[in-house]
């Protein structure tokens, strides 16, 4: 895994960096604006720009971003420049809303450290890609499809609208133990597959309930597998329309909720349509709130808020419908979706 020495202000772009808006720096204390170190992107269909970006992940060295033009871009975290790009093969019915970058065997049986597990939401399936090579201006490089599974339905291994994928990698780092797939649209649940993509079980059903014996989801928008302070791994599910975040064992047993439909709101410790989640090195989580137009740092175990970043708006430091966030080397990269930009900040 590579390292990023620092986040710098710069220009984005593919090949050359001149096509992208200059990044901005600064904050306005006391206004609730986010203290950012760089802002990249801007509305556009050219590399390094975005059209309503909705999903972000990283591969240890660079960021991967999917926008509503169905474009998948690899972005240099220091400059915002595009390093690789491709478009989903089908997007007429809708575009992906979530994905993860994780290791796995490619189509040749070769272990790859970075495969893209894409929730192809409106095609009711998961697509796994080996990313294309370095982007060269004027050339279009396509990724290699490693695997795909799923179809429309509510049976085992079938999906309504897939929202996100989480991969549990074995302790040896050279095997995939399980793949978790979340969905919504009336069949809100999490389906669990083996490393060989065989359906194992699912948990959750549509609803607003908080009864631990009956797990209910209302648009589980994103997931992450985290390691607790005592070394255990657990699955965290952002139950967005129930305005809460759930912690589960890898077997799908509820550990606890933070937030609820009844307590939805914009106060500290409350959530209003949380959509994305990422974890800092100290185990605390950054939650991007689509409805709250902010990022909240929370301690899920203690169920308390540690800080709030951002306010609604279009100005630098303000946020509009932030869908997703990721953390690379303890630096946060936030998709300010309706502003079509990538915000870099040090939480």
């Amino acid at each position: 895994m590579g390292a990023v020495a620092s986040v710098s202000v710069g220009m984005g772009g593919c090949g050359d960096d001149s096509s992208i808006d200059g990044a901005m720096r600064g904050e306005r204390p006391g206004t609730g604006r986010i203290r950012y170190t760089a802002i990249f992107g801007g509305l556009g269909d050219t590399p390094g720009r975005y059209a309503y970006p909705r999903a972000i992940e990283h591969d240890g060295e660079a960021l991967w971003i999917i926008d509503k033009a169905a474009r998948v871009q690899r972005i240099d975290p220091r400059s915002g420049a595009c390093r690789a790009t491709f478009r989903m093969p089908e997007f007429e019915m809708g575009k992906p809303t979530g994905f993860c970058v994780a290791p796995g065997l490619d189509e040749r049986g070769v272990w790859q450290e970075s495969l893209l597990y894409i929730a192809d939401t409106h095609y009711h399936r998961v697509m796994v890609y080996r990313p294309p090579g370095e982007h060269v201006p004027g050339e279009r490089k396509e990724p290699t499809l490693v695997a795909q599974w799923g179809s429309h339905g509510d049976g085992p291994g079938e999906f309504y609208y897939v929202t996100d994928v989480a991969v549990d990698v074995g302790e040896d780092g050279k095997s995939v133990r399980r793949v978790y797939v979340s969905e919504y649209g009336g069949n809100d649940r999490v389906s669990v597959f083996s490393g060989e993509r065989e359906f194992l079980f699912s948990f959750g059903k549509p609803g607003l309930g908080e009864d631990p014996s009956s797990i209910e989801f209302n648009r589980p928008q994103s997931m992450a597998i985290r390691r607790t302070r005592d070394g255990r791994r657990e699955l965290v599910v952002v139950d967005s329309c129930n305005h809460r975040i759930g912690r589960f064992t890898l077997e799908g047993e509820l550990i606890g909720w933070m937030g609820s439909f009844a307590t939805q709101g914009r106060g500290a410790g409350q959530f209003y349509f949380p959509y994305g989640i990422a974890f800092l090195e100290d185990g605390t989580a950054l939650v991007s709130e689509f409805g709250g137009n902010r990022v909240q740092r929370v301690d899920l175990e203690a169920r308390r808020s540690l800080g709030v970043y951002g306010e609604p708006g279009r100005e630098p430091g303000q946020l509009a419908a932030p869908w997703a966030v990721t953390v690379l080397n303890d630096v946060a990269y936030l998709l300010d979706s309706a502003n079509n930009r990538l915000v870099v900040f040090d939480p």
Partner: protein
Amino acid sequence: MTLALHIGPIQFDQPIWLAVAPICWALAVWIGRQTLSGLGTTSRRVALVVRLMVILLLAGAIAKPQWRREAKSVNVTVVVDASDSVARPVPGPDGKPVELLKRVDQYLEDAAGDAKPGDTISRLTAAAKAYVQSLPVTPREKPDTLFIGATDGTNLQEAVALALSIPAKDSEQGAAAKRILMISDWNETTGSVEAAAAQARAAKVPIDVLPIRYKFDQEVKVDRIVVPSQARMGQNVVARVLLHAVKPARGKLSLLINGDQVRLGDGPGEMDLAVQLDAGDNVVSIPVLLPTPGATQFKAVFTPETAADDSIPQNNQSLAVTFVQSQGRVLIVASSTEEVAPMRRALTDSKIDAVVRSPEEAPTSLVDWTTFDSVVLANVPSDKLTQQQQEDLRNYVHDLGGGLLMVGGPNSFGAGGWIGSPVADALPVKLDPPQQRKMPRGALVLLMHSCEVPRGNYWGQQVALAAVNNLSRLDLVGMLEYSFAKGDWWVHPINEVGNKSAVTRAINSLTFGDMPSFDNLLNMAYQGLSKADAGARHIIIISDGDPQLMDQTILPKCRAARISISTVLVYPHNRARSGPDWDTMRRIARETRGNFYGIVDEGEFATLPSIFIKEAQVVKRSLIWEGDAFTPTLVSAVSEPMRGLATGGFPKLTGYVVTAEREGLSVVSLRGKESDPLLAHWQYGLGKSVAFTSDASVRWSVQWPSWGKYRAFWEQHVRWAMRPTGNADMRVTTEDLGDRTKVVVEALDAEGDRLNFVRFAGRVSGPGGVSQPVELRQVGPGRYEGVFDSARSGAYLMTVQYTAPGGSAESGSGEQRGTVQAAVTRPYADEFRSLQDNAQLGRRIAEMTGGRVVSDDPRTANLWERAGLNMPVDARPIWVIVACVGLGTFLMDVAVRRVRIDPAMIAAAIRRGLGQQVQQAGQQLGSLKEARERAQQAMGPRGDGATGRRKAGGADAATAKTKFEATEDELKGAKTNQAMPTFEPEVQKAKPAQSQAQDAADQAEGGLSRLKKARERAQEKFEEDDQR
């Protein structure tokens, strides 16, 4: 005006001032010889040079200097002709069809190698209108093509003007040089690119051209079909079809009249006419019998025998219209024939040709409407006619002089959803109830989520407006949406519609956020409607169906509160009419007894407003008054359609639709309860309309068919509204002027004499329902001319009402009135007229603007060529800086003459600083004294003149001598006695004061500094004396 002078990066806007410098220099040298004579050689030279520099800088400052920065980058704006003539496959060099537009991207990509760092490219498309596809980006970026608009025309003038307006920046954010590259066949249909090229030449932007070359060697086109503009019913006319063939060709010609194919072949079942065409123009004459009255449309279509004989299928047809006169024909549109049966019988008995059709069979084009002299809408809801049909109907009345009668019923007027419709404009009553009326009202909540729909913001606003415009002023309306900034919120809280300004503002402020869930919003709507003082409560949801609905209690709560919800699923993710989004929206409608609509394709979006109009009617049943039978109150018996009907009274009615009186020229003849209008009529544009708000027979006016004047009632109103025919003979001809059409009317009276002083009021209804007035002016005896625009392809129907002197005894007015109609058709876009490119025009444009005809080979095209370009210069004034430097130099001039710099002493000081120990002040004093003595000895035996001058100084002179300083008098004497001109008077005047101040300062400093200065002056004296 003076030409600018460039010296390196500096530009002088008024370089004439620089010429002053040498003159001043000469003066300065001459003066300097006198005034600087007291200085040493080096000092004098330095002082002189400094003065010259001061002069130069001051002259430079006056000459308006500017700092120039010349652009290094070039932006090429590529204008791609995307019109139909280019977008279609054209014959390639080998004769095979080629789609040239598809090669443009590859060409630009291959040509990008010539670009230098900082160079950019921007793109435009040119068709009927020009659109920017990409602002300047690096040449290798390939932006997607966005909206290009209608492609049935080519407006290169607009494209060049737009290209000139695109800002281009170089890498240093200054302006970049511009080139325009036009890729076109140069067959323009609108505007003049030469006019725009003149602008480009003035802006020094060269236009390079890459001509698209083609030529159709095998082509047949139908130039036009010629028929009489007017004819009588049952008359035989000859339709002449003009065809043009590039080479001899065979094919079949078919003729359609009002869409029905006319049999032309000789054999059984042969509908088409086989034709053999010679190269050049061909005429085929076809005699036909005119079958129906009104506007009759002819369409001639040529089908080649072999596809190779014809290259452009779009120009294989032509249209023409003949107006066939008739004696009164009325269309009755009604959902139930039974309901209008008495009315039809009454009209037929009055010798009016009355045709009854269902709303589904109503005319679908303006031409179809004109086949009737009047139209009756009997209890027809607005959603049964499309928006286009309604607009055509309004134009039919307003522009073509047709008559309209709207007859009531529960589906008519406001209760039928006609509020806010185009037809409502034509009616003599307002469909909103009077403000003061107390009546039960409806409450409607719109839940808006259309962001996922193509052009979702537009359609969202359109449907909201459609629904709101359909509500009456007393109804309640609210609007909910999800906004990124506010979450789930009331864009417009439930409130009375009123004059609609507040809710219209709210509609315009909709942000159409991506709604995650219906739960909160439906609860908000439920709570709002539960509190609303309304009879009917309804919610309409528009969405792509993907928001969540998890609250299982909300739908039962709505149903219990008698709140219905209709759902409009638009452009769902799942187009197969099933799936979770479909299930959610269906379930909401089903469980609350609302309606469900699924709109999948963009082609169906046009039906959305009518859905919302229909749904809005759910809350509008309150506009119907029903009760005990009452006798209508007669208001006006003297109006033309009511003549003779008032005597004996009117039968009773039991119901009607509540409307309001329309101020102005509308005449209300009968009133109902609370003075509501029952019967009204007015003139609307060229046509007339009548409103009868009760029904035709079956529900509210059951006593009317047995009324003795029932037939006269309907006959008089229908005849009043009918288009007048007139007795004058008006011969109409038209002439094609390119984008416009000239109309010529020859007016003759019944005896065949020319009619003068005829007044005309005419309108032309063109393609897309666009209406325009046409003004006819007399240009000769009985001859009148006018012009109207006819640039778009399609049919143009002209109706002119005339008022001529010499009325009949019947009219009693001394004037005769009538209507004359004509039609012009432009069957296909001009794009398809050209059979080859017009590259010559491109070459001329390139020559005009200093551009090039670039190579077909992108590797040698060199699109970013610098040669011939006028590189933009960023010039910033720097006269202030130059003036400041001049001022600083001037001070240096003073310093040179007043401050003595002793290199030896400086060197000594450096030496001391570097190594020697600091000597005691007493030692320094001693050495200085020694120096003074040496100086005295040296000066003693010399120049009496100098001594004499010192003496003249008196006591001060003695002091000065002691100190080896020049006295003030010495200085004064040296200058004033010489009486020399000076160009620095202020400084000279200031010198004595400075000197005094300096002396005072010296005294304050003590003996050490005075001695230093004395030594310096002594040394200067030595040097001067040595030189002498």
